[in-house]
């Protein structure tokens, strides 16, 4: 906040009587606003309801006008056809799990020390070193995927889990470093200095003292990396040309060509792809909110 506005604040604080200022804060809860909010948020999320409800309908309930708003009875056959009896889809879900977890671990492994280094050590060129991480966040995925395909063809990394894990980490690592750095900035230096007095090396101090203190940050980064890798599409599309190695997002896309207008199975498969992220979201909602705010606005 600028000094100018701080002055305004102080002036107002003097001018406006204290009891008048306080009244606004202690108003009755605005339940009528809650009601409006429920309607608005409900309307906003309606397409999501449509996704899930379509997946639970039989074909004669899907293709109706006016639309069938509530599926009765619930029909789970779309899930059987599209996912549980579909070995391609099951394999793709497994691939995505391996790739996402791999990318998450690699992201943590690289970003945890890097963000610490950028936050703590008074490097002469912290700003310069931070630059590639900031720019990398803004790169179009296709710009990395195109040369990566030619390079990975030479290196034998096309159609491998390692190739996809490495590619995904290019997307997640810069974000992780930017999100994680502020967490380290909040840890008082005195803690490490105390460890140094006790004869610990810098690496020991980092692992034993600092790292446990930034656990919330590490969780945030892990959640983001997993969410990003699970939903990633461009690297999957370009770097896995064999069906057995494709992540589930790519398989879902080829489903669209395959199933055409059979929207029941398509919505069932889409719901299954979304479910792991929705679970992660519900469990780690606070981490996502804080990470989004800290990573994107400032650090």
């Amino acid at each position, binding site marked *: 906040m600028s000094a100018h506005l701080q002055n305004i604040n102080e002036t107002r604080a003097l001018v406006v009587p204290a009891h008048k200022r306080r009244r606004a*804060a202690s108003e009755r809860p605005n339940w009528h606003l809650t009601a409006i909010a429920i309607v608005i*948020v409900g309307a906003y999320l309606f397409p999501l309801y449509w996704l899930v409800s379509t997946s639970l309908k039989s074909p004669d309930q899907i293709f109706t006008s006016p639309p069938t708003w509530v599926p009765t009875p619930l029909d789970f056959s779309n899930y059987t056809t599209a996912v549980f009896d579909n070995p391609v889809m099951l394999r793709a879900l497994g691939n995505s799990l391996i790739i996402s977890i791999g990318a998450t671990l690699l992201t943590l492994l690289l970003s945890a020390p890097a963000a610490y280094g950028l936050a703590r050590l008074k490097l002469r060129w912290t700003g310069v070193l931070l630059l590639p991480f900031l720019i990398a966040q803004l*790169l179009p995925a296709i710009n*990395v995927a195109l040369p990566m395909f*030619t390079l990975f063809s030479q290196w034998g990394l096309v159609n491998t889990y390692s190739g996809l894990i490495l590619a995904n980490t290019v997307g997640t690592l810069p974000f992780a470093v930017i999100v994680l750095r502020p967490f380290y900035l909040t840890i008082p230096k005195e803690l490490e*200095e105390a460890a140094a007095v006790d004869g610990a090396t*810098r690496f020991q101090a980092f692992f034993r003292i600092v790292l446990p203190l930034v656990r919330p940050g590490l969780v945030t980064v892990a959640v983001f990396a997993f969410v990003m890798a699970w939903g990633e599409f461009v690297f999957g599309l370009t770097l896995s040309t064999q069906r057995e190695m494709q992540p589930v997002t790519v398989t*879902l896309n080829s489903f669209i060509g395959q199933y055409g207008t059979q929207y029941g199975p398509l919505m069932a498969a889409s719901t299954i792809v979304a479910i792991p992220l929705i679970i992660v979201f519900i469990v780690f909602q606070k981490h996502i909110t804080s990470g989004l705010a800290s990573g994107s606005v400032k650090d």
Partner: protein
Amino acid sequence: MTISSSTTSRGAGFSSAPRQGQRTANWRGALSRYGFVLPAMVFLAIFMLYPLLYTVNLSLFDVNAGNFLAGGAPFVGLDNYKEFIASPGFIPSLVVTLVFTVGSLMFQHAIGFMFALFFNRGFPLSALLRALMLVVWVLPAVVSASLWRWIFSGSYGLLNSSLGLFGISSSEPWLVNPNTALIAVIIANIWIGIPFHMMLIYAGLQGVPEQLYEAASLDGASAWKRFRHITVPMMQPVIIIALLLGFVHTFKVFDLIYVMTAGGPAGATNVLSIEVYKLSFEYFRFGDGAAAANVLLLIPLLLSALYLWLRKREESTQ
């Protein structure tokens, strides 16, 4: 504690190598300082920087399906760039990209801003409802794309069958019609982008002191005047950053459009990123694709420079 007395000397010894030490100790100090950052830097150098430079190299050669693996592609200088910019598809593709980006961004930001202002009024359950909206943001783009394909479907899609409720009988295949496909894709992207803008603006609004509004209302300022003269000026840095980031993120959108229309019909949604993909992975003209990719990179790069400059300026005023 006794530590505090010795921290200064110890602290200094920690980060800067001891001046009186030998050359080896000095080197070890530097090594440990950069050691933390090094693995990530090496990783990005190999898997990001090198591929980007490799693209520049690729764009100067006529690499295609025939010589891609065998090698020996002829050097063509800047011909790939000239060809791409002069190709009949370039200008329409650039226009589609800009319309998609600006159209999405305007509404994402405006609607996100309104949501943020609304949630900022504070009411029971507001945090929960706000968090619920973020579900859309974590959804994989492919899932959102297949959902909106279904909504815009000609036969019994939600849009058409809802129009039926108002007595409008429609079987318009919105994504197949070249006149409506781009608008449909923009609508889907607006839906996806609202939570991002809402979050950024909401976080920014938390920093606007409540007393400013209270004082203004005591002075008889209307809600609009309070928004115009307090919210907007106070939020200006956040608005600029949200718009810049939003622009860069929207300019490069690939997956949503690829899954919804694959750039069709008749190029109506053929954004630059799709064009790059087609050149390289459908026509296997990697040289042309690389040149197109570098053209695609140019605009976000310029905006990134602006973003970094603004960041720096904001940091220095804090």
